[in-house]
């Protein structure tokens, strides 16, 4: 059984510290010199609930103004990290639009289900389709907070109970957690979708056994 590879897209308006979050997550320990130009700059192997997975992270930092590109980014993602800065209300508002677009694309790519039914957004059954995590970044800047926890949490509830985290890329608080949570959602979705078809009984993978060696 080969290792799963999951694609995560990090979205949010400019200046919310997305790239910092991603860089912190990918490099694990602080490396003196960070080079984002190599192929594996945004790949990371992690273990979630005993499963080894590889995350490929697409961070659109710097290209937020390429609105036409957004969809291309979104298409590649299996899970989305929607990042705003707790110091900017606008950055939270802007996420609404991004989330709409994600849902639209994901629904459209399925094609079989009706895109918009009479269901409202608050219906949690809609949410379960697209793994998402809402992240309030810059939690270290408590003094400059412009978005209250309650407000952000309400948004996450409006979105159908999306998990909400407050993180600080600078202090490396909740950085791994948001990615792991998202990854867990993707795995769950994966399982649901591949329930019966061809799932072999797998032994616990903690200690792989190998005949050749």
């Amino acid at each position, binding site marked *: 059984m080969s290792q799963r590879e999951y694609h995560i897209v990090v979205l949010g308006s400019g200046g919310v510290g997305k*790239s*910092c979050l991603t860089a912190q997550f990918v490099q694990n*320990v602080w490396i003196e010199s960070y080079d984002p130009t190599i192929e594996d700059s945004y790949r990371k*192997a992690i273990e979630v609930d005993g499963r*080894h997975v590889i995350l490929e992270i697409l961070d659109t930092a710097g290209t*937020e103004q390429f609105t036409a590109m957004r969809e291309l980014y979104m298409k590649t993602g299996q899970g989305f990290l929607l990042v705003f800065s707790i110091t900017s209300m606008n950055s939270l*508002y802007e996420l609404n639009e991004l989330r709409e677009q994600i849902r639209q694309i994901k629904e459209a790519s399925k094609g079989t289900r009706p*895109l918009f039914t009479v269901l*409202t957004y608050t219906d949690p059954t809609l949410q379960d389709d697209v793994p998402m995590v809402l992240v309030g970044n810059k939690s270290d800047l408590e003094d400059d907070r412009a978005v209250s926890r309650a407000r952000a949490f309400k948004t996450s509830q409006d979105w159908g109970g999306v998990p909400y985290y407050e993180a600080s890329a600078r202090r490396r608080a909740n950085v791994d957690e948001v990615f792991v949570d998202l990854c867990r959602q993707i795995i769950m979705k994966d399982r649901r979708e591949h329930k019966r078809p061809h799932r072999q009984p797998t032994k616990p993978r903690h200690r792989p056994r190998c005949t050749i*060696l």
Partner: protein
Amino acid sequence: MSDFVLDSNDTDKHASALVAPLNINKSPKRSRSREQRLSRRSSSRAQSQSQISPPLTPRSSRERIERAVPSLPVFHNYLRAFYHFHPSSTVSSSTDESSITVPISQGDVILVHSVHPNGWADGTLLASGARGWLPTNYCEAYDHPSIRTLLNALTNLWDLVRDGENGHLLVFTKQDYVRGMIGGVRFFLDKTQCLTRDSDLIVAHVGLRRMRKGLLGDLSSLVKTAKRLQDVLQSNEEPVPVFDHLDELILKGFKLVTRAVRFLDIWAQDAVSLSFDLGDASNNRPLTPPSDTADSAVQPASLPNHINTDVAQATEDASPVSQTNTTPAHDEQDTTLSQPARNLARLSVAFSIPSDSETLQSPLFPPGFQSQTKRLSHRLSYTGKSQGVRKENLASERLNIAHDSFLGFIGSFIGLHLQSRSSAELTLTTQQAVVACRQFLAVLEEIWERDSRRSEQLQQARTVMHARLTDLVHATKNMFSDPEADTGEEVVTPDSGKQLVNAATSCVRSAGDCVMKARQVIERIGDFEFEHEQNELSQSIFDHIGQPAEQHSQELDHLAPSEKVEEAEKPLPAPPSEERSMPPPLLISESKPLPEVPQESPIPENRMSLQPASSAVIDSPTVSSFRSSRISLPPLQQVPTPSPAQPNSSDFSPSPASVTQRFFAKSDSVNASVADSNSSYRYSMRGDTGSVISVASTRATTPDHSPAKKRSSQTLVSSFGSSSELRSMTSEDVSAAEEHLLETTHAHELVHNKEGQITGGSLPALIEQLTTHESTPDMVFVSTFFLTFRLFTTPVEFAQCLINRFDYIGDSPSIGLPVRLRVYNIFKGWLESHWVAESDSAALGVIFSFATGKLRSAIPHAGKRLAELTSKITEIRAGSLVPRMASSLSKTSVFTTADSNVPTPIVRRSQLNLLKACNEGRGQCTILDFDAQELARQLTIIVSKLFCSIQPEELLAQEWQKKSGSKAVNVRAMTALSNDLANLVSDSILHLEEPKKRSEMIKQWVKIGMFCLELHNYDSLMAIVCSLNSSMVQRLKKTWELVTRNTKIRFEELKNITEVGRNYTVLRQRLQTVMDSCVPFVGFYLTDLTFIDEGNSTTRLLHGESGADNASVINFDKYMKSARIIDQIQSFQKPYRLAAVPEMQEWMESQIDRMRKSDQANVQSYYRRSLLLEPRETPQVVRAAPPAIIEDSNRSVLTAESRNFSKEKFEFLNFHFSGNPAK
């Protein structure tokens, strides 16, 4: 010995948790960066080591071993002896080459080259230049903040000289390298507040005054030597004298540092306590240097900071202890030493550390481990120059080799599968691949275990790798099991073949990951050596294929690090001083001082016991075989230590060639070198080939071969501590030129990376690099500086700093003048081609007064010219004409059909007329009316014009992201254009009612995209693909059914090229090959720049990891990285050789403009249109509500707030569009 061998066979072959007992680890925090900086080359050393006999092997009981285990095996470049160690005083004093261990005396400072896991280090004594093996447990790591810079400089010098030995002499043709030493000395004196002759301390303290004089004398003669070497090299003489000069150079460096160490000892005692005992320096007992032993990092867990201080205090109060003179075992060198180099307080504190680390470390390192590997810890070498002589046992090399061979096998493995071969070959290849992989994993384990921090990352990578390999094996097994059952044709089914290839590919990928992580670990802990394993398993492994997994799981489990450690037994040699009881430091210093009388201490006893042992072995024929097979040693309390030293050296010193041969035969042989003359030092240092060795050894044994050198080495040894010698030195060398010698430099405030590039530095240090007098400043450095300096300093500060440089360098004709001219040139370059009026004009006043003041009086014509330039700049600013860099001038030139090589536009007269009509508002035309290639060309011209006008400043510090007042107008215009083009594509398709026409439009855009690709216009290509790939176009099933297969294939091609995954790998690779004009997709450059900006901090610490005394300097690496990307972008800023068709451009721009102005630059509106054109297939939805209405109902759910906001946002975007100069 035999039982020892048995032992090792019994233990797991992979098991190994040996760590060199250099555990003193004074301050692990800073050694890492020092490693990086200084470990640039060690390859030739590795070579030479293999030709020298192995060290004495200290032996001990296991308990002792444990004690010696380090908490963090960090490699220390310098050690300081705190015991005497004279293993074979008779032998070593008579014949230089014959002793293998190097005698050390208390207070000696040693430059360490490698550390054997048994605790012996290969080091060079700074006091004598002698190189050999020495017991690390007699030493402690030596480091002190004030002398650190100097030590670093010396390590650099050593590396340079060693490179020089291998023929890389280029660096010596300039004197840059000496500046590191000068800077080190300066920094040292500065830190000790003894920089000037008139400083209070120097005036008041005779001893220090003398030492300072001596120090400067040493420095002066070092500089002179460097100068001579430079002269020799420039006069193109034959290389022999060069080596002498190199020897002299390094010895002078050693001497200088040795004296600095002594200086520091005196200073630490007297200066700090302020008790200026002017009497005799010989009675001075040095205090522990303030932050040396008192470094809390030593015993972070158990020993609070203040204890050390207490200890120091206690010893200060204690009566001085006489040490050296009473020691009969000492050679004359020691007795002549009157300098107080032995600090008992320091020693006792240091000595407590092992016992401390015992408690800390014992759980980590289980006892009773025996390893078949043999390791040495080295400074990791990055130099590419001497790869040929690299020692293959070095972990880094082993890693590379193992990785290479693994890749080789896995490559053929994949290859075989692609050809659908069957079993025989496949079996063999799989076997080979697995064996190679095992070896690879084994190397990883070695590295992992060697690192006491147990790098989690590496372990993770390895576990992944292991899982991958297991997958691979399973895949192979699956392939075989079926055919075997059927006993039929062994045909590889395509499915399982694919699976196999996938497994192999992911194996390769994780192997790469492993290598990366492993290198990081090696970098941290220092390179080391270990033996090739006898992998008899290799055959048997594969024999079991197809058998139940359980049988082999055990074997597999051995690969798991945790288990390995449990099984591990570790034979660390005991420190020679094993019988000594080790009371806590406080007790020692207070009540029972350390062996004041060395012969009473166990050390000499131990040494004595060594002697008979070694003589016993002298004639034994088994010696060499013992040595070669010695892997780890039996507990040795009963067994006399075999000292291979004597027999060996007496053996081979007459015939170096045979020695070489012998030692080449044994890859694991460890080296040792000898004695107390610089000839032996040479001996150990050189020797890439046998002939070189014999030359060196002849020279070494024949005094008259190089008399001068011999003499110098003698003076070197004897001069220390002898005040008369000092006086003669100083009176001779130190004079008024002292100030000149101590040329102010900030070289010690620079940080270099492994490749020797500057990655950080203080502003004065960076400016010094801009204005070096020895050589032309590096162009990349200069341009990066000019481009980015506004990000880390202000123009005024920059100007001020340049003027300071002008001031402090003085006006000496050899140094001052050239530097001053360079300062002028930098000012000139700034004003002429890098001036940004907006921010820089603040500095105009400073520059002008400098030009008319200091500069004019020093260099009149330069002052005049600079003053002229300044006023010109002022005038130009008034006329708002900022001179731009010359390079950007050619970028806007327009080509016409008249030029050669410009293709004729593909446009018919009728088309032109149509365009004219359209542009005058008299008609309608569509994209379909024109030739796709010409459309692509004209589009490219439009985009390229914009791209070429992007200024480097726009790309710095995320300027393009600024919400207001962004200066990155062209970058933003590019972005807007890209969006508009994408919208234009969607619009042109979606506004057509008939599916057939829509499919034709899609075809046309795919064609245009293909031509854009041909023109390397990736920006437009990206926009087109984006749009065609968007859900609103993709969902038009009826339309796509009508698109021809050919077009679809082409579209797939384009999609693959613009793939955003894997960090735009495809696109990046394509860009690397582009030589012509090009419009790259700016987006990923913007991402790169953003990540560089946010992922790298603006400052970095001068000495690696953080520490109280650690200054932070500008992280120039960050700016270099940004500049590199900007440079890449600029390299594409060449106009296309294409002829414009103004009519077509006008029409296209109007179309683009239409997109920009229409409020439809909103995905939603297009999506609605798409739904109208080809409604959803789900009937209920269509019936329930038309799409548009659905959309509205959706919208209504959004909060009013957010709706308002999104409206605002679009207005915001429009605002920026309108501010766009691209129109």
